[in-house]
């Protein structure tokens, strides 16, 4: 067993000299993402150690082992990749991006690599390769279109996910994400937007008053109620920026008479761990579940947010109990179900303008939340148009994979990442574009602004808020319970 670090001579032979980048450049577009100060010494060695540690404890090895035997380099994924379609730079072909990591795997973790190393001593990981990876992996918006179309079945998204994870272990991760997660896990406020609890309570109170004014009934945001059916967790940014979505959700909840609550200890659905680090992913999921356990909630209800839904839906069972884990549903699933069983009634002619719907990649790609929003929209909008392509084949807004949080690369996102989306929206000529995802909302809003498209971005529940019809019975039950 190797206990010593490699000697300086060995290091000199095996690894190229390092240079210290404060900022890794996106040379082509002059867009940069900021990273925090990190240790630049021995990067290849630390990269490999992190890689090995991850392979040792996680499940990636067998998948990589499978993928390295399949790569045919047919470039079919290029047709699918919105980024490549915008830049036309072969470096952006998903296949090439995957190859960056796969070649490292081949060289440093397989028998063939061992042979190559022993016979020729070439091909080992260098600083340049790490820098290329650092560039490339954050160009991707993790929309996973390439994965669906790969003729040999290589999961480029998984490889990118792993690549970012390893890079983050040696300190190369966008500062915006790292800082947010740090606040969420270790900060005083415990959420990514650093909203203190009093501020949140103020906001909710204000919203309640607003709704009272507008709808004439008491719609409450129940706080810290134990034993509810639903623990509602939206992306925390909604509290700041998408208040109307929250009001819509509250209205729906009120109209359907659900027992629900918002936890005061933890109220942030955002999980940037999904974008850059499985370790953070795990910690955030644990935090989420511990809040649900504290409140003895029966379900976790995630608000309008793609990645928050996906991370909770797929990783709550992974880290917290497998089959017996607490169920996770998306608010749109809930609303649709209520609509179907008649508890929720919407005014069918609320919106007469042209409306289009943007599928957030994280919930639409594997066909999870695809039909539900359409059913809801058709229930109260008269003029709904689809984008092409749509549903599982939709095109990413351009801010996926956490890139939307990196404010410093906004020009890249709106000119390259979102180009295809902008064209799509333009083509529909819609008045409203509905994007039920905090990240998509932010990105598309910026996109519409930068690309100067005459269209309004709006959340699904923002619109529902206007369409909800309250039963007399709900009102009466509610007043009774309030009296009691």
């Amino acid at each position, binding site marked *: *067993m*190797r*206990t010593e670090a*490699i000697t300086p001579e*060995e290091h000199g032979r*095996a690894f190229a000299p390092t240079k210290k980048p404060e900022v890794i450049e996106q040379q082509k577009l002059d867009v940069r993402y900021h990273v925090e100060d990190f240790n630049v010494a021995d990067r290849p060695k630390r990269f*490999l*150690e992190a890689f*090995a*540690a991850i*392979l*040792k*404890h996680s499940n990636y*090895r067998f998948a990589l082992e499978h993928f390295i035997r399949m790569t045919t380099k047919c470039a079919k994924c290029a047709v699918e990749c919105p980024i490549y379609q915008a830049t036309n730079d072969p470096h952006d072909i998903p296949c090439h991006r995957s190859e960056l990591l796969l070649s490292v795997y081949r*060289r*440093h*973790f*397989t*028998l063939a*690599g*061992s*042979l*190559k*190393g*022993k016979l020729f*001593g070439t091909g*080992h990981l260098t600083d340049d390769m790490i820098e290329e990876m650092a560039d490339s992996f954050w160009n991707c918006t993790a929309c996973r279109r390439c994965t669906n179309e790969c003729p040999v079945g290589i999961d480029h998204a998984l490889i990118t996910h792993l690549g970012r994870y390893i890079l983050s272990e040696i300190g190369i991760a966008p500062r915006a994400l790292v800082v947010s997660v740090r606040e969420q896990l270790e900060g005083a406020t415990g959420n990514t937007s650093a909203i203190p609890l009093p501020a949140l309570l103020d906001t909710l109170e204000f919203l309640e008053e607003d709704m009272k004014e507008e709808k004439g009934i008491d719609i409450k945001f129940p706080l810290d109620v134990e034993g509810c059916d639903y623990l509602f967790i939206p992306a925390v940014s909604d509290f700041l920026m998408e208040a109307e979505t929250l009001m819509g959700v509250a209205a729906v909840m009120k109209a359907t008479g659900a027992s629900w609550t918002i936890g005061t200890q933890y109220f942030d659905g955002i999980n940037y761990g999904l974008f850059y680090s499985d370790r953070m992913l795990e910690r955030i999921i644990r935090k989420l579940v511990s809040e649900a356990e504290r409140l003895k909630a029966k379900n976790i209800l995630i608000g309008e947010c793609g990645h928050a839904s996906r991370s909770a839906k797929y990783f709550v069972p992974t880290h917290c109990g497998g089959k017996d884990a607490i169920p996770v549903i998306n608010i749109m699933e809930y609303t649709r179900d209520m609509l179907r069983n008649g508890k929720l009634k919407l005014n069918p002619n609320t919106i007469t303008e042209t409306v289009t719907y943007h599928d957030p990649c994280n919930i639409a790609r594997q066909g999870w939340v695809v039909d539900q929003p359409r059913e809801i929209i058709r229930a109260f909008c008269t003029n709904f148009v689809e984008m092409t392509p749509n549903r599982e084949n939709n095109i990413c807004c351009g801010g996926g994979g956490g890139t939307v949080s990196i404010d410093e690369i906004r020009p890249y996102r709106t000119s390259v990442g979102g180009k295809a989306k902008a064209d799509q929206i333009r083509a529909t000529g819609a008045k409203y574009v509905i994007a039920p995802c905090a990240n998509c909302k932010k990105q598309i809003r910026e996109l519409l602004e930068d690309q100067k498209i005459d269209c309004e971005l709006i959340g699904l529940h923002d619109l529902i808020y206007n369409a909800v019809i309250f039963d007399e019975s709900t009102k009466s039950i509610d007043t009774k319970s309030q009296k009691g």
Partner: protein
Amino acid sequence: MDRARVFKSILWTISGLGAAALATRFLIGLGSIANMNDAVPWGIWKGFNIFPGIALAGGGFVMTAIIYIMGREEYHKYAKVSVLLAFLGYITAATALVTELGLPWFVWHPIIYWQHHSPLFEVSWCVMLYLTVLFLEFVPVPLEETSRFTKVRKFLTKYKIVLVFLGIMISTLHQSSLGSMWLITPEKLHPLWYTQLLPILFLLSAIAIGPIMLILAILVISRIYRRKTDNQTLARLGVLSSFMVLTYGLVRLIDIGANGKFAMIFDGSWQSAIFIVEMSLMVIIPLILMGIRKLRNSSSSLWVASLSAVIGLGLDRANIAGVMLSVDGPRYTPTIFEVLVSLSIISAAILVFLFCIERFKIWDSKWEDPREDKKSRPDFDRSSEVWLGTPRLAGRTVYTLIFVISLAVGFAIIPGKRIYSGGIQKVASQKSLGGDTLFIDGNRDNYGVNFDHKAHVIRDSSCVLCHHMNQPNDKQSGCYTCHLDMYQRTDAFKHDWHANPTGANISCTECHAVDQERLASTAKACDQCHKDLIPPGATITVDKYMAPSYTDAMHFLCVDCHKQKAVELADKSNLALCATCHTSEHTDHFVDGVTDKYKHPYFNHVVLPENRPTVEGH
């Protein structure tokens, strides 16, 4: 590379090579890889795997007797390993038996078909029972690893002493019965080995050498895994078994003396030399090294003593089971494949042994690889900067590769003659190796004619006389390239060859007249073009472009000529007779190592070789 990995790689290689031979044996038959024959029906698998294997596995019952019945607690830590060793030894023997049985899927037949006179019947029953007992004795060890089956484990541990008793009783029986098996061959087995006491000698030697095998195994394991050994205990065990060795030696020598065969030990024949080697390996060297107090505590003398005793026992069993049997017929030397199968079975058993050592608590503690530990850092290989995963994962990758490649090599090195001896389509004529004679076998049934090609070329300088040469530029094709079947006629004219640009490249009109329909019947005759190819005076009639059949070609071409020659050469008047070619003798071209000229048993008498060797001492 650590020692264990190198050792395991070698074992995997051998296993792979042997597995290929094993697969061939099961697919094609014993004859495809083994040199066993009707005179020596039992080969190296009996003499190298089964008899010594069972004897060396005797450590199991001896050790359990010492530990559980005589209550010698100091050896208790070796109880599990000796049971495991015995279990694997018996499994090895059983595998070898299944390999060499003609109908291995009927290996259970002794259970329902009884023949209590047969020592082998008793042996097979005892082996089956004892395997069960050993399994039950050993199975609590792996069960310790899981939380399931706790009841079973506790039950078995509780009634261990019953199993121990059963094990000893059964072992005693069949260790001796293995000796009884050879009582039936009083004249075949060399007198130095044949005695009515064979059963007792077998039992005694198993009791003596079994524990010594255990010592050897412990030494080997500790060397592979770099663990310290408890030499004191091992030496004490050595002393214990050297008493048994002494007993065995004395019984054997006294028996030989009592039968008046003492002089044969020193009569200078090769058998006597082997006897002396055997006795010194099995008895004298261990006695000296383990009996003398000064010597026995050193690790190296333990090594030498145990190794020599084990080899000696193997030699003894091999001698009785094969080497010292008089043979009436082809002598037996094992093929490389038989050896490989033998070794591969043993290698596989050792691999299982190592697996158990690594995974289960065989000694006081489990042998854990520190690299398997969760907390350990991945150890990249220094020179290549590669990390193949934890040792188990890396082993999975590396050993399967080694196994697969050696298996393929194994399949490649088995001679095609042996593999295809059953089903190959043999060509009608074969080149003789290094000679000037063609073996022409029209029926492809191994009986044919040795055709002296050179002599014919000298006599008739023209190749054309015999070789038709249908194909452009063809000067050397043998008859069999076209005449594949003895009686069927063959297409003599290849139209496409003539028309093809890369063939003869002649235009249609060259053969077919311009104004006529292009049919075979209207085309130009062959000899219009091929004037120079047809010898003057030769008449080769081509009927609808079908060349004559093989037999016809041979008979009409050759016999005509020979008849003519018979007239010309007055001293060789029988040249045209059938028997000139169709003699009964022929050289066998398909069988390895056959030097005798065989005659067809169907048509001929058998002549036995005279001057047979006689057995000394009768």
